[in-house]
């Protein structure tokens, strides 16, 4: 059959049912919008990273260390830093103002030299950064002013020094906002660090030197040349390219995951297209049979409708792309505070192209299966109205088309995920979820049939029965609407359980204020001060900083080199390296605490005389990272002194409990004389009194730092909410798709429902009754979708809590009811809105049309 005819017929056919077809393809609009928005956003983000790369580090090179720079490192800095050298020394301390109340744990950074070399730190008032080094000034995070009730111009106390707050940080290049969430930052001129008198023993200090290279000199070769040598000196070198790469990877992953959530919306739209097409083909059966009588081939008829699906897919996708671009303009401002840089909002043409192409492809591929049955409508159907389709042969193309459909889903997921394995897993996950949702929906429908409420009023029975009218799209609507609700419910349950866990651990009898960095001779006076203020004092917990020297007799350096070589062979990054080289803050005691659970070996008894090696308990995950089992020998480097240990057991630790928890716990009798500091916990009833106590201790013992657990909880909640907000935003598109699919289904069945209601009215039904039938039908659909969704979400939420977060699962019934009710109301609103005509029109008008 000639293509011109196919095109013409596709156009003429589409013209007449444009409204319905558009709704059909609007199913994919939300999905394409989500895809274009997130991909365009990610593209812009990456371009911005590229453009602003140098300002991310503020320099060409950085060398950092958690110890004092060794003479070798200092010599290297002098050589490399001839064009430009700046230093930033960062440590934790308590800050308070004379005028305000309370005290707050802050990160103090002493800046020496013209850092940053690239990019600008924007302050409020402007210019405060430039004035910083003029005197004892401090530029702080705005959150600190709020926490201390302070204002610009106030005097800030840090240790023994006093600073004038001259400004707050409005924007800082390369700042991801996560660090400042846990401790507000305070920038002071480097030359005043000594005046604080806080850098004594045991203080954790990070020293970082920033280097500006002469124009034209490449940073990477320098970094590569000195990296190994610096590592031996416990220092780390970073370049702009590396931090750009890290950020780029992180943003890429974020984009991929959000893109996958967007893809769900699109695939649900595909489901809507498939279902609507199925009904559409049934309604077109007469037309198709006549065309066949008039000499159209089966393939030709098929081509007409595939062409229609493609064109409608294109319209739906272009509309979606336009919405996506608009949404993309809003995205950066919604999550700007979490982003380390300025993001442009120019439309990304590759993202638009990919989005539109994906949309058209999904529309066509999902329409193919139901359209295959158009090939099977025989010309004879035009002659015999009640033609029995039972005798039709099976469509041989069914299997290839199903395969194409599955392959397309996997390919799209792989493309969006950035790798085939994730794509496959994701496609399988969606398939399984849709399957479980479909089975749940089916069971619910069956149980309605099985226990049909025969005694209910007629309108309710009719509404329920309508779910099964010929050509109904109940399953597709329940799936698409349900999946959106399922995503939102699962997100909600995950967030709820995570935060609930934090809240419970902060229950009424637990400590909520932690003092640490207490020197041995300060333990008694600090404890007395707390008790004197009327608060309970827990027993002091010793903390001993140390590193691993050897495992099973092999030095860590050799093990690390091996691990690195093996990881390179497998083409992966070495994850175990950090566990080998990091500093451990360990404790010693002879009993287990409530947050610990023994998983291998046995606990040692107390009071036994022990020589070397010292019994040691390791946290199970870190033991796995280190490749250590019960019975292995480990030698630790405790401030230069070797301490031999033997691993006698492994523990699981519930880190979510805000208690001093440790990777390594030593038996008593070995570390008592080692350099150490102590942690003391207490509990004060409200924030004001906690702040008061923090301030008193900080004023008397400047090196003792403290934090309020409620403040940390708030910070964690803010972080979790911010991540969840982005995912929830993408998941909303799925719900929107569900709504459109429902609207499409309402529109597709318009004629049928017009006739039904005309008949009802002819038989004496009032408009009110007809409206009630409609309400009953959509209330049932909405409840079906949301109940099925919530059952699935509860399962998923439980699995997440149990396997991923390892926390107990709680089901919030009140919120669950709200979600179920909300989805049902949405369904009823869309259903009745699309049924106004059904209620309004007189039976005669309808019957004359038929």
């Amino acid at each position, binding site marked *: 059959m000639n293509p*011109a005819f196919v095109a013409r017929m596709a156009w003429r056919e589409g013209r*007449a049912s444009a409204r319905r077809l558009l709704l059909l393809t609007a199913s994919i609009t939300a999905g394409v919008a989500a895809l274009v928005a997130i991909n365009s956003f990610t593209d812009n983000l990456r371009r911005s990273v590229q453009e602003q790369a140098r300002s991310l580090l503020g320099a060409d090179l950085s060398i950092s260390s958690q110890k004092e720079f060794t003479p070798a490192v200092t010599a290297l800095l002098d050589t490399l830093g001839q064009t430009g050298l700046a230093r930033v020394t960062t440590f934790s301390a308590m800050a308070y103002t004379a005028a305000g109340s309370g005290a707050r744990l802050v990160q103090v950074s002493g800046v020496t030299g013209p850092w940053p070399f690239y990019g600008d730190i924007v302050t409020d008032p402007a210019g405060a950064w430039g004035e910083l080094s003029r005197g004892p000034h401090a530029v702080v995070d705005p959150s600190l002013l709020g926490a201390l009730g302070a204002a610009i111009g106030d005097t800030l106390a840090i240790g023994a020094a006093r600073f004038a707050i001259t400004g707050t940080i409005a924007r800082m290049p390369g700042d991801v906002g996560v660090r400042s969430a846990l401790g507000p930052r305070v920038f002071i001129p480097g030359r005043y660090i000594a005046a604080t008198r806080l850098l004594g023993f045991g203080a954790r200090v990070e020293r970082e030197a920033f280097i500006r290279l002469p124009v034209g000199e490449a940073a990477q070769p320098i970094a590569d040349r000195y990296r190994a040598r610096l590592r031996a000196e416990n220092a780390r070198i970073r370049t702009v390219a590396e931090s750009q790469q890290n950020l780029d990877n992180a943003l890429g992953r974020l984009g991929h995951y959000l893109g996958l959530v967007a893809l769900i919306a699109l695939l649900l739209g595909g489901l809507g297209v498939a279902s609507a097409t199925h009904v559409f083909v049934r309604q077109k059966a007469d037309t198709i049979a006549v065309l066949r009588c008039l000499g159209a081939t089966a393939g030709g008829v098929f081509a007409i409708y595939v062409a229609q699906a493609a064109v409608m897919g294109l319209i739906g996708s272009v509309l979606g792309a336009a919405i996506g671009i608009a949404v993309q303009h809003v995205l950066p401002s919604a999550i700007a505070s979490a982003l380390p840089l300025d993001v442009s909002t120019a439309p990304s043409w590759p993202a638009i192209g990919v989005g539109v192409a994906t949309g058209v492809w999904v529309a066509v591929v999902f329409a193919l299966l139901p359209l295959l049955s158009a090939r099977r409508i025989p010309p004879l159907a*035009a002659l015999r109205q009640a033609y029995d389709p039972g*005798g039709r042969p099976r469509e041989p193309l069914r299997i290839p088309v199903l395969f194409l459909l599955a392959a397309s889903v996997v390919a799209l997921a792989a493309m969006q995920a950035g790798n085939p394995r994730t794509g496959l897993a994701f496609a399988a996950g969606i398939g399984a979820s849709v399957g479980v949702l479909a089975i749940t929906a089916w069971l619910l429908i069956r149980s309605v049939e099985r226990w049909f409420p025969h005694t209910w009023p007629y309108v309710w029975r009719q509404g329920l029965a309508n779910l099964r009218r010929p050509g109904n799209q109940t399953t597709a609507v329940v799936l698409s609407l349900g999946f959106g609700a399922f995503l939102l419910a699962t997100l909600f349950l995950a967030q709820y359980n995570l935060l609930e866990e934090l809240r419970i651990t902060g229950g009424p009898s637990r400590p909520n204020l932690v003092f640490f960095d207490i020197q041995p001779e300060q333990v008694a006076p600090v404890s007395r001060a707390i008790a004197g203020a009327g608060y309970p004092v827990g027993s002091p917990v010793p903390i001993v900083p140390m590193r691993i020297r050897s495992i099973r007799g092999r030095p860590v350096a050799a093990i690390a080199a091996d691990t690195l070589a093996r990881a390179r062979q497998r083409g992966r990054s070495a994850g175990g390296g950090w566990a080998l080289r990091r500093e451990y803050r360990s404790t010693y005691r002879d009993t287990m605490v409530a947050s610990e659970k023994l998983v291998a070996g046995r606990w040692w008894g107390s009071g036994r005389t022990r020589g070397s090696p010292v019994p040691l308990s390791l946290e199970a995950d870190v033991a796995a990272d280190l490749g250590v089992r019960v019975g292995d020998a480990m030698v630790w480097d405790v401030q230069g002194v070797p301490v031999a240990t033997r691993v006698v057991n492994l523990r699981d630790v519930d880190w979510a409990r805000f208690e001093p928890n440790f990777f390594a716990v030593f038996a008593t009798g070995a570390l008592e004389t080692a350099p150490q500091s102590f942690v003391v916990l207490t509990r004060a009833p409200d924030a004001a009194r906690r702040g008061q106590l923090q301030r008193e201790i900080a004023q008397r013992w400047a090196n003792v730092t403290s934090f309020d657990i409620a403040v940390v909880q708030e910070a964690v909640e803010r972080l979790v909410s911010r991540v969840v907000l982005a995912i929830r935003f993408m998941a909303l598109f799925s719900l929107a798709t569900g709504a459109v699919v429902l609207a499409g289904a309402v529109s597709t069945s318009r004629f049928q429902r017009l006739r039904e209601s005309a008949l009802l009215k002819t038989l004496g039904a009032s408009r009110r009754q007809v409206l009630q039938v409609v309400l009953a039908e959509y209330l049932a659909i909405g409840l079906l979708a949301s109940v099925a969704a919530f059952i699935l979400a509860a399962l998923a939420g439980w699995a997440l809590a149990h396997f991923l977060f390892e926390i107990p699962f709680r089901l919030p019934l009140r919120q669950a009811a709200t979600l179920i009710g909300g989805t049902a109301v949405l369904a009823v609103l869309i259903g009745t809105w699309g049924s106004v005509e059904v209620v309004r029109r007189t039976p005669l008008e309808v019957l004359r049309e038929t």
Partner: protein
Amino acid sequence: MLHCESLTKTYGSGGRELTVVKNISFSLEAGGFLAIVGPSGSGKTTLLGLLAGLDRPTSGSVTLDGAVLERLSEDARARLRGEKVGFVFQSFQLIPTLTALENVQVPLELRGIAARERATELLARVGLAGREHHYPAQLSGGEQQRVALARAFSNRPRVLFADEPTGNLDARTGATVVDLMGELNRDLGTTLVLVTHDPDLAGRARRTIRLADGEIVADSAA
């Protein structure tokens, strides 16, 4: 022009077999006018469908203008219909989404022939000049059937099959439609095969085949 030999059609439904057309043979010359009559369920429509190649017989054979239908593939039969066969249905079967003019154009356009002028001419001939851009729903039953007639003749068919063409029309409108069919039969030499209940309509045919229970019980030249 049209020849069938031992034509039999059996439908199997639910394990029971139902033979709707039994061993029917006859020939019809070019330009002939045949009416197939008989009570409901006698197999008239099935026979018509088989003669037009809309379905395959269980056994037997149909030759239409020299082409042996059961040797042709589904698509080849579709092409044959497009070139040599016209249809008129009891329920008109106009495509509701197409205008009158477009409905008439379809058979020619299927073959890639620009058909606007001819379609306009045919509509004028069936008395619907000026109604070209109306949709089927905007036309009365008689007008719809006249559009269907114009469509049936648009490709100058060698054979026109009509299934109860006046079944849904009142007597006067029906007569107009039948007159038109007769005219076209005479002017264009089209062979006519029609299935009908209507004795008046059957009386106009030059030959009548009466069916009962799927078999020919009478075959008379009028």
